[in-house]
């Protein structure tokens, strides 16, 4: 399934958050959404997930308007992983992951549900924890079971908001690898990222947002240029092999 935003704009409380953004997330790709804090990445992802209705423009899922689709059907097509984890869940790990099957409650058999939950738990390496209470997990483990919940939806489109923000490098690699595998199965993945090295390493394409506008989209090599770092982030970079390391601030009139 292909998810398209058609020149969407959004103003909330007088602030122009998104400005004529047109992009698409294609099956088989991991699209990275990058940009400085406040650029509108999370807002864009929330619009793509159907949580915020744009003022103008549309979001299409395989050509169908996302906002007129029946909510339950939309729930089967889109899996959304927010940045903040819920405060306390208290259920067993398996029960949390099984919540991802709720959109399928009228369409899937109990066996299909159980298989999807098992697969998702295996994917994040938490099968051994299935019967443990989710209240007794570390931050990284919690992040992984919430990811497993999203995987268990088995949706053709996955939208994740900074899924690796609180993870150590090994956990972050594991998670990004999972998105890669998910895309390799033909699903479309869009991920908001702050870590540009991870974006360069795992994303098929990268979309750059700045002050609510889409200022660049393409392969990591095309997008992550020195000019972009200076223009969008206000930093000068040094190249260590393929990786660009932010090195110093550039004097810029755009960013205080």
């Amino acid at each position, binding site marked *: 399934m292909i998810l398209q935003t058609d020149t969407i704009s959004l103003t909330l409380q007088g602030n122009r958050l998104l400005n004529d953004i047109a992009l698409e997330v294609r099956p088989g790709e991991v699209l990275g959404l990058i940009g400085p804090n406040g650029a509108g990445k999370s807002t864009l992802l929330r619009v793509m997930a159907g949580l915020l209705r744009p003022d103008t423009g549309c979001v299409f899922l395989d050509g169908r308007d996302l906002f007129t689709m029946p*909510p339950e059907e939309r729930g089967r097509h889109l899996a959304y992983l927010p940045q903040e984890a*819920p405060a306390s869940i208290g259920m067993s790990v398996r029960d949390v992951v099984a919540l991802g099957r709720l959109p399928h409650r009228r369409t899937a058999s109990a066996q299909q549900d159980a298989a999807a939950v098992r697969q998702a738990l295996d994917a994040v390496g938490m099968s051994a924890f299935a019967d443990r209470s989710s209240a007794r997990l570390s931050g990284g483990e919690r992040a992984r079971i919430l990811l497993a*919940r999203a995987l268990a939806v088995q949706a053709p489109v996955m939208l994740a908001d900074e899924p690796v923000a609180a993870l150590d490098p090994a956990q972050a690699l594991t998670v990004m690898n999972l998105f890669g595998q998910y895309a390799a199965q033909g699903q479309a993945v869009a991920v908001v990222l702050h870590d540009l090295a991870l974006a360069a390493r795992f994303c098929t394409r990268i979309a750059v947002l700045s002050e609510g506008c889409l200022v660049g989209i393409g392969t990591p090599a095309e997008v992550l240029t020195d000019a972009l770092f200076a223009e969008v982030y206000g930093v000068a970079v040094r190249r260590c092999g393929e990786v660009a390391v932010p090195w110093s601030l550039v004097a810029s009139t755009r960013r205080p």
Partner: protein
Amino acid sequence: MSRYALTVAILTTLVLALAILSLAAGPAGIGVTQGLSDMLHGRATIAATIIGQIRLPRMILALLIGATLGLSGAALQGLVRNPLADPGVLGISGCGALGAVLVFYTGVSAVWAPALPLAALSGAGLATLLLLVLTRGGTLVLVLAGAALGSMSAALLALTLNLVPSPYASYEIMHWLMGSLSRASQQDVLIAMPGLLIGSALLFSTGRSLDALTLGEDVAQTMGFSLRVVQWRVVIGTALAVGSGVAVAGGIGFVGLVMPHLLRPLAGARPSRLLLPSALGGAALLLAADLFVRLPVSGAELQLGVVTSLIGTPVFFWQVWRLRGRPV
């Protein structure tokens, strides 16, 4: 048998046993089976009258009011994701009682009987609505808003008592506020039944949405659950159930707080799995408390609401103890 099924089976047996005991308990030594069969065959015996007009209404109301209080506590706790949510703690019962006392005091209910449950429903409904509007801010705001509502209804109830012309009427109102089923009649059953049943059905229908909500409002919405729909169901369901209960039995607190809390370790933390056990547990608790107040302990019959509060307060303290030191 899973732990959930076992819990439900044990609680169901307990409710049935207490219901039969409730029919059998009373000062008049009559046979329950004889009374029931006389009643069903339309024989106008003393046993039939006592069972049909005194004990059966009392048993039915204790069972249904207890069940809906337990259920509304479980649904509210699931909705606001806070183990301290309860119609009594959040001031919903208090506002229901205020509505009822106002029509009581003004004499409207003497002219038109349905005014009493309707006023209690409106009071409970307005309170729940206000809580939902005020508590977009989270847990702390919710508890504060509940405390404010509770204080407001207490103040206005005190004002009403203050203004009541005769001391006898004020004693009547005070007594009623303490909560009791000792004067439950067939008419009370007819008044309360629709609200209790429709309210329960609405609350039971929220199970899966409450499960989804444990992941946060955004995720629930992306899975196809509308927060607004589940909020309205819980608001209207709680208002119907609590309002109808308050209208016929006065203020009975803490059942909704105690039951989900006691049953969570047995039934699991999934909100949908807590609804039925909490309803059964609430029914058992109120039936048991209503049996207890009928015991000749002190000469005077204890009020039902006093007993549930005495049971509930330690659980409230226990919750506060568990939650201490956690960031809000």
